């Protein structure tokens, strides 16, 4: 898989989150805030995010790694590290 830069990872996540929570203005969300609180995501939304990541770049995030992706910044770091 291609290595993601910080920017491309962030763009991917923003695109996926916009699909999952179209009502939310991502510009208002703090990148270091908990996605669950910032965007009102529930566990179904989070699963859909994981499915979106898998479909887009082929990464399967194990459940035990979920906490690392609980913020936008954390998810960006996780994706860049795991595609490097």
């Amino acid at each position, binding site marked *: 898989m291609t290595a993601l830069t910080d920017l491309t990872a962030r763009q991917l996540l923003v695109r996926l989150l916009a699909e999952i929570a179209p*009502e939310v203005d991502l510009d208002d969300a703090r990148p270091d805030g908990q996605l669950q609180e910032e965007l009102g995501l529930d*566990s*179904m939304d989070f*699963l859909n995010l994981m499915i979106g*990541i898998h479909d887009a770049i082929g990464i*399967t995030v194990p*459940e035990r790694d979920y906490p690392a992706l609980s913020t936008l910044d954390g998810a960006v770091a996780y994706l860049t590290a795991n595609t490097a």
Partner: protein
Amino acid sequence: MDEGTLLEWLVAPGDRVHRGDIVAVVDTEKSDIEVEVFEDGVVGELLVDPGELVPVGTPLARIEPVGDGAPRASGPAPEPAVVTPAQGPPRGLPTTERTAGRILSPVVRHLAEELHVDLRHLAGTGTGGVITRHDVEAAVEVPPAPPAPSDPTSVPASATVLAAPDRIRSSPYARRLARERGVELLVSGSGPGRAVLAADVPDAPAAPPTERAGGMREAIARSMARSKREIPHYYLQTTVDLEASMQWLRAQNDTRPVVERVLPAALLLKATANAAARHPGLNGRWEDGHLPSSDVHLGVAISLRGGGLVAPGIADADLLSLDELMAALRDLTQRARAGRVRQREWTDPTITVTNLGDLGVDAVWGVINPPQLAMVGFGAVHDAVVAVDGVPLVRPVVVASLAADHRASDGVEGAGFLARIADLLQDPVALARPADAHTGGATP
């Protein structure tokens, strides 16, 4: 729901259709509803064009019997069947909801019919909430749509669950624009029947976002107030040890592709559905008496991101395997949030689950969604110290609660029901298997 706008036809004259096929999409204020056909046949004449606003009960199309003009086997009317946006529920549950038990004079009934007013959504101002002539006349905000061909198979609409549309007439595009621009729709616009059209939107006054979901809020208010007014609730709760379930789920999800992962919520729903199949006092409806259901159509409370709540159902949830139930839950959540729920999913639920686990609360005591008999609540799955064989251990647990209608069941049945849910969750492998039949259940 008094009326709806036909958004699109998914079939054309000449198409073969089968019972259960989605043939059209109708827009109501809060949700697009997919209209199903309830018999096999061939699509004949389409009676309503896309964009037309029609009262509930209006025939939308004719379904001709298969086999050129062979006479229909039954039914007093030689007419071909029609599709209406309000075909009765397919499983024989009565649709009357809000008028149940109310006394209506024939004059009022007749007037309502004439003016296309759905009595079930009217609050009566007469003595004891009786609907008067004046109430019916006051409810006519727009001239009735062009007279629809009358047909004996047209039936009144079934009421939506928690999400009744608000009363502002508007085009879907106008609503989208209003949402995007953060404005509230005017009460009347320049369209036919004073409907709000896109052109009306820029002039609309700004309103705080909290008012945008006003229509749904009102519908929830009505339904919940009715529940607390009419239903004598009793409440029970039990703490369920989820060690076995969570371990099994973790192991499963570790080996599965992401798309096949199962959420704990699906297991909780599955246990509830299987238990409900064995407890008719909690599964069914109360309409002038207890109407137990042999099917389990499991309502799921789904919060909408803009605010508000809907509780559409998963049909025959007790007969689905865990994977099928999970897939149905994903699909339903997605469609509910996109405002696209099928008509049956509104009207069918026989019991509802509210799962507030994602909000981190320990427990929730639900308000029953009338005319159902029970609401099951789950709090967050969390670690707690529990005594196992006299030893304190840290285990994942969930608090399961039951709010039930005391007219239809007593605490003994309620307690048995919660105990069965707890039992079923101790054997996730058995729970994951599809049941052969209701009586088969997941426990022997």
